[in-house]
């Protein structure tokens, strides 16, 4: 079996006594798509923040390509190849769409400005935003802003890509399109962690799912079996729905 590209060992993060992440141990293989699901407040975004170095861990270890990254700053982790998108999209509002994506290829991709530009154009073509290249990022509609986040992350040349609610707020056909893009990214050998609210997305996309509940791993395994796990159904949908689901 291959070495995991990203590994969490007993990762815990507390906020004033509350365990937002509780002893989480996970491993991610190169090129796989993993769904990270759980009800609101389960600690999904906290986990993303811990991996990307935006929050320090309280205890435990995060290893990337065999080395611990818990003491690294966010920009170092980003340059090392772990990219993320934000649940609430965060474009550089006064820059053009192209400049936004170039930010990714210049700094994390460590390219000169010319090469960075080419790389950014390529990423924009991939997410089909090339026609909007010279528009200020603030003028994009929501679906396109989500794609911009995706293009920016891609331009960073990542090996691991964490997509935080990248489909939230999109309509059905927009989601279908986004799923196609995510699959195509995974085919490049990039590990994708899809943080999702919508079960449909995970079911269609991921081979494997991890369910977080109250900061801890509740269930983990192939998507089908995880989704049938009665504990998951109860945690995710609540008691009332669990009963209806069952009968």
């Amino acid at each position: 079996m291959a070495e995991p590209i990203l590994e969490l060992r007993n990762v815990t993060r507390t906020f004033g006594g509350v365990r937002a992440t509780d002893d989480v141990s996970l491993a991610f293989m190169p090129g796989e798509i993993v769904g990270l699901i759980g009800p609101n407040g389960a600690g999904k975004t906290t986990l993303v923040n811990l991996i990307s170095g935006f929050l320090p861990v309280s205890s435990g270890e995060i290893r990337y390509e065999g080395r611990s990254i818990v003491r690294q700053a966010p920009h170092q982790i980003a340059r090392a190849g772990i990219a993320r998108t934000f649940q609430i999209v965060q474009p550089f509002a006064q820059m053009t769409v192209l400049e936004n994506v170039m930010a990714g290829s210049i700094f994390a991709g460590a390219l000169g400005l010319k090469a960075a530009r080419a790389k950014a154009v390529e990423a924009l073509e991939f997410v089909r935003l090339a026609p909007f290249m010279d528009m200020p990022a603030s003028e994009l509609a929501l679906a396109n802003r989500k794609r911009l986040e995706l293009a920016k992350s891609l331009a960073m040349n990542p090996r691991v890509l964490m997509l935080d609610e990248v489909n939230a707020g999109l309509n059905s056909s927009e989601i279908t399109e986004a799923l196609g893009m995510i699959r195509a990214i995974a085919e490049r050998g990039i590990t994708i962690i899809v943080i999702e609210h919508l079960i449909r997305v995970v079911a269609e996309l991921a081979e494997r799912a991890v369910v977080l509940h109250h900061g801890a791993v509740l269930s983990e395994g192939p998507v089908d079996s995880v989704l049938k796990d009665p504990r998951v159904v109860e945690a995710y949908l609540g008691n009332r729905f669990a009963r209806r689901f069952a009968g």
Partner: protein
Amino acid sequence: MILDRTFLLKIAVGLALFALAAFSAFSLDNYQLQVGTSLAMLAVLCYAWNLVGGYMGYPSLATITFFGIGAYTDGIVQNLDQAIGVAWLAAAIAGAAIALLLGAALLRLKGHYFAIGTIATLEVAREIANNWDALTGGAIGLNIPIQMGSPEFVGRFFFLVMLALAVAAFLVTVVVDRTRFGFGLRCIRQNEQAASMVGIDVVRYKVAAFVLSGALSAAAGGVYASMVAYIEPKDAFNLVKTIEIPVMVMLGGMGTIFGPLIGSAFYVVLNEFVWANFINWHSGILGLIIVGVIYFLPGGVLGTRWPSAKGRMPMRARAAQPRTTA
């Protein structure tokens, strides 16, 4: 660096302006030289502020702290019988070093706290200059050896030196504007969190901009001190000046390569032709100008859409939209 044709043209225009100023030095009278020198000095300070306040979006009010530190360093070093060039170099280095120390601490703050923290540096520096008699001469001030030569020669000399410094500040801005450093600063201005997530070393970039700004301001302070040959705390560390500088840049246009020059030129013209005639209303008129700039030129001269042929005049240009919701 990405250099398109328009940008190269802009650089050429800028350099031509400076060259013109340098050649005219030999036909200007003493008064004109004096005005030109203070214009060049303000331009340096505005360019220095623009790096931190304009490109990076941090409302620094420490420009004059570094200016004053440069002035005192120059005075102290010259009084140790060192050459004037050594004193200026020492001034720039002192400015950079203190900016490094202060920046590491202050740049963790944002918005009001950063602004007030930077004002505090000015107050502390002035108090130290006031009270550390042995080093600074205290409130009495510090005398600095006068440059030898005729008034014309000395006036021309300092004008050219200050102009050279302004050219340097302009070129630094040009480079910053077009390289990854400036690109990173602009990202930081818009969203610091997103900036670190695309791999920008936010802390290092911010400190680097602050140090660059501090060195330029201090160098201007050093040359100024040698020129006036006498400095005192309330002149070297002047609160009004430290707020005037951002106002000038706002007047010209923040985060642009010509904004600081236009703003400071406009300001000097006002100073010479308007205030000179209303000596008792100096600060009141300055206040009116500040209020006027904020309401009528919120994006500065360069960021404002001027009335077009069709006579439309949008009062608020896009460039004036809030960059940080502090």
